[in-house]
Structure formats: structure tokens, C-alpha cells
């Protein structure tokens, strides 16, 4: 017999899931950070910014911090919204999305197109232009090159091409122009207030957000991976198990799980991971024990770029997941599916020690 839903406080009734309040709070704190930085920059006497050097130091410090959290705000937080809408009201979803991404330098519709229609539908395939370019051996281009060239240059070219060719439907072109106009109106607000402030505390943070935070994140999520079309069913993404990272980044580290089931809510990804561990052990899922930040630091090594890439893509994979991957023909899929753990989740947890033991001996 179905259990009736628990009544929720009035303010939470607009949300599809109560946990999503945290996404909204995150975004509001980011906006508050921008407002505070703007106010301090426009009131140098109160802020203690007495010289041009003081202003430059403030712009660099505040700009890099704002860029960091703006990258998370769009690349992780709004990202959750693109897969599972926060609110019950479609209009509220649409407008909150618009107000969400402009502080990250993106029209929400453009980001949604790049992420869902291009990246998720073709992850690691040749037409997934959101990812780094690959050499003949499948290896990603250098992370510095990717971060420097991808945003906004490659994005602009590919998005223009997609919208002109109506990739995603015949209304795509008209919708993109409308969304671009709304974005331009919102994005120009700091420029109307003060041009210098806008360059230092608006454009600079968006450069950091896209080139550093989101660029490096996109890179490490799929570095060393293989597309599904290669026959490797569960090697298209890397999963990151750092507890601190996943707590502070809305569980985005469970990336293989996310690509397998994008409709699963971000708060449920750890539970999904527990159920999928047996599959990973059998199919060679790629899992590392840290988060994106450390991974990006490893692959962006200036002194040993090749060694860093090798360490991240091979050396640091958790032992239980290091077994040689099996090539799965489509016909074998039902057989693999039959081995999947049964609910409840205790069953999945119970098999972990056995899987670990197999990993050590195998």
C-alpha cells in the first residue's frame, strides 16, 4: 500500500526535491558574493582600497574566488537543474535557469544544448565537441591547450554551427536568438554600473569559471576513457570517490553513474554507486579515490605532463577496478544484467568485500 507523502513546509512546496534548496542557496550566496565585491570596488575608501595596486590585488583575489564558485554554480549546480528541474513550475524553471547561468557567462539554453544534446547524447564519440580533442591513440590534447582554446572560442564556433543547422529541432535557431538577447540584457548590467569593475569582477571571474574550473572538470571527467561504441560499456567516464569533494560538489564525482542514469537525482548518486560497484568490478569501471581538483593538478603538471596524465588515467585507479576490461558484444548485455545486484542496497554492499578480494587476486 503506497505511503502518503509527508507534508512539506510552504516554502519547500515549489521544489520537486527538498535537497534542491541547497542548489538555490548556493546560487544566492554566489550572487551575494558578486554584490559584495561590486560594492567594495565602488566604495574604495570604506573597503581600504587606497591605491591602484590595492584595487588590482582585490580584483585578482576576489575575481579568482568568484570565478571558482561561478564555475561550480553553472558546471555542477545548474547542471543538476538541466537533468532534473528544481521546481514544479515550468516557467519558474525557465526563468530561474536564465538568472542562474548569466553569472557564469552562459545563456542557460546554450549550456543546456552543449551539455545534454551534445555531450550526454554522444559522450566520448567523435561528434561530442564539448570534450578535448583526441589524438590517433585516443589520448586527450594537453589540458592547458584545452582550457585556453575551448571557452569561448570553440564553444562559439560549434554552437553557431549547431544552431544554424538546427541541431536539436527546427525551433532551435529562433530559441537561441531569443535566449541570447535575454542573456545579453542580464549580462550587461555590471557594464552599465562601471566598466572597469565589470572587466575586473565580472569578465575575469567568468574566464576563471569557464577556462579553469569547468574546463579542467570536463577534462578529468573523461580523460583516459573510451566511448561506448568501442565496446567498452562502462568506461566512458571516471568516478571520483573523495568524500569531501562529493559533499561540497553535489556528488558530481559519481560521474559514471551520472552518465549511465542522468535522470537520477544528485542526492541519490552515492546509493546508485553502491549498487553499481559490482558491475564496475566485473567490467573495469574507472574509479579514483580523490576529486577533480587533485586530478586536474596531476594532469596539468608543468614539469611532467605525460607522467601526470599516465598517473591519473592508469596509476591511480582503485585496485578493485584495475582488472582488464572485457569487451562486451551487445548480445552479452542481458547476461551481464542478470548479475546485477538485487535491492535493497544491503545486498550490493555485501558483495563489495568479495569483489575486493577478487580484485586483489585477479
Amino acid at each position, binding site marked *: 500500500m503506497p505511503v502518503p507523502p509527508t507534508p512539506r513546509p510552504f516554502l519547500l512546496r515549489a521544489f520537486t*526535491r527538498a535537497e534542491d534548496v*541547497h542548489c538555490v542557496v548556493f546560487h544566492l550566496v554566489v550572487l551575494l558574493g558578486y554584490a559584495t565585491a561590486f560594492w*567594495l570596488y565602488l566604495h574604495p575608501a570604506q573597503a581600504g582600497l587606497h591605491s591602484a595596486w590595492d584595487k588590482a*590585488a582585490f580584483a585578482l*583575489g576576489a575575481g579568482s574566488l568568484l570565478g571558482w564558485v561561478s564555475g561550480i554554480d553553472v558546471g555542477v549546480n545548474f547542471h543538476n537543474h538541466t537533468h532534473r528541474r528544481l521546481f514544479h513550475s515550468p516557467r519558474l524553471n525557465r526563468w530561474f535557469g536564465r538568472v542562474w547561468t548569466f553569472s557564469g557567462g552562459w545563456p542557460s539554453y546554450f549550456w543546456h544544448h552543449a551539455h545534454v544534446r551534445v555531450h550526454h547524447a554522444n559522450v566520448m564519440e567523435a561528434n561530442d565537441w564539448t570534450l578535448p580533442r583526441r589524438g590517433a591513440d585516443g589520448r586527450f590534447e594537453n589540458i592547458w591547450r584545452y582550457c585556453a582554446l575551448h571557452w569561448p572560442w570553440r564553444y562559439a564556433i560549434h554552437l553557431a554551427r549547431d544552431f544554424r543547422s538546427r541541431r536539436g529541432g527546427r525551433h532551435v535557431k529562433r530559441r537561441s536568438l531569443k535566449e541570447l538577447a535575454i542573456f545579453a540584457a542580464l549580462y550587461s548590467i555590471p557594464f552599465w554600473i562601471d566598466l572597469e569593475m565589470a572587466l575586473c569582477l565580472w569578465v575575469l571571474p567568468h574566464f576563471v569559471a569557464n577556462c579553469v574550473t569547468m574546463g579542467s572538470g570536463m577534462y578529468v571527467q573523461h580523460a583516459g576513457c573510451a566511448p561506448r561504441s568501442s565496446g567498452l560499456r562502462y568506461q566512458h567516464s571516471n568516478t571520483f570517490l573523495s568524500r569531501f569533494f562529493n559533499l561540497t560538489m553535489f556528488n558530481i564525482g559519481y560521474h559514471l553513474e551520472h552518465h549511465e*542514469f542522468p*535522470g537520477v537525482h544528485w542526492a541519490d548518486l552515492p546509493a546508485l554507486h553502491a*549498487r553499481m560497484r559490482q558491475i564496475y568490478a566485473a567490467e573495469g569501471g574507472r574509479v579514483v579515490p580523490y576529486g577533480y*581538483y587533485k586530478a586536474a*593538478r596531476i594532469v596539468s603538471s608543468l614539469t611532467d605532463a605525460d607522467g601526470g596524465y599516465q598517473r591519473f588515467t592508469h596509476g591511480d585507479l582503485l585496485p578493485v577496478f584495475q582488472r582488464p576490461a572485457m569487451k562486451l558484444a551487445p548480445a552479452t548485455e542481458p547476461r551481464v544484467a542478470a548479475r546485477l545486484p538485487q535491492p535493497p542496497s544491503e545486498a550490493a554492499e555485501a558483495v563489495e568485500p568479495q569483489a575486493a578480494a577478487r580484485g586483489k587476486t585477479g
Partner: protein
Amino acid sequence: MTRTEKAPRLVPSIGAAPADPAALARLTHNLMAPPRPLCLHAFVGRSLFPLITLLLIAGTPLWGAWVTLALATLTWTLVGRHG
């Protein structure tokens, strides 16, 4: 099971090979996070980075722009090492 919210609608991966419905059902059956979604621990954890950013920016009048820059560099270093 104290959680009584409606289970999420599950959407298999876009562009993925057709998933076995039975496997999909087994994997995602009754898949819900533990309750306490709005507890203070989760709130501080999930908003930790923007709260640090806000604190460092708002504290500039107290300690000066150069300390803000130094603290921002320290934050980047620590997160890069341990994040």
C-alpha cells in the same frame, strides 16, 4: 524507511545503448538518499565554497586587499591538493 516522498522518475542515459528494463528497474528500485536533506551539516558542506568566497571578500575592509589575495591563493592551493 522514513522517507515518503514520491520516487524520482528515472530517465535512462540519452544516446546510450538500449538498457535492459529489468536491469534498470533493479538498479534504481527504491533509490532514495537518506533523509535529513536540510540539516546544518549538509547545508554548510554544500555551500562551503561560496561561503568561503563571501567571507574572504566581505572581510577585505578588515584585513586589506593583499591579505584577501593571499587567502584566495591559499584556498586554491589547499583545494587543489586535497579536493
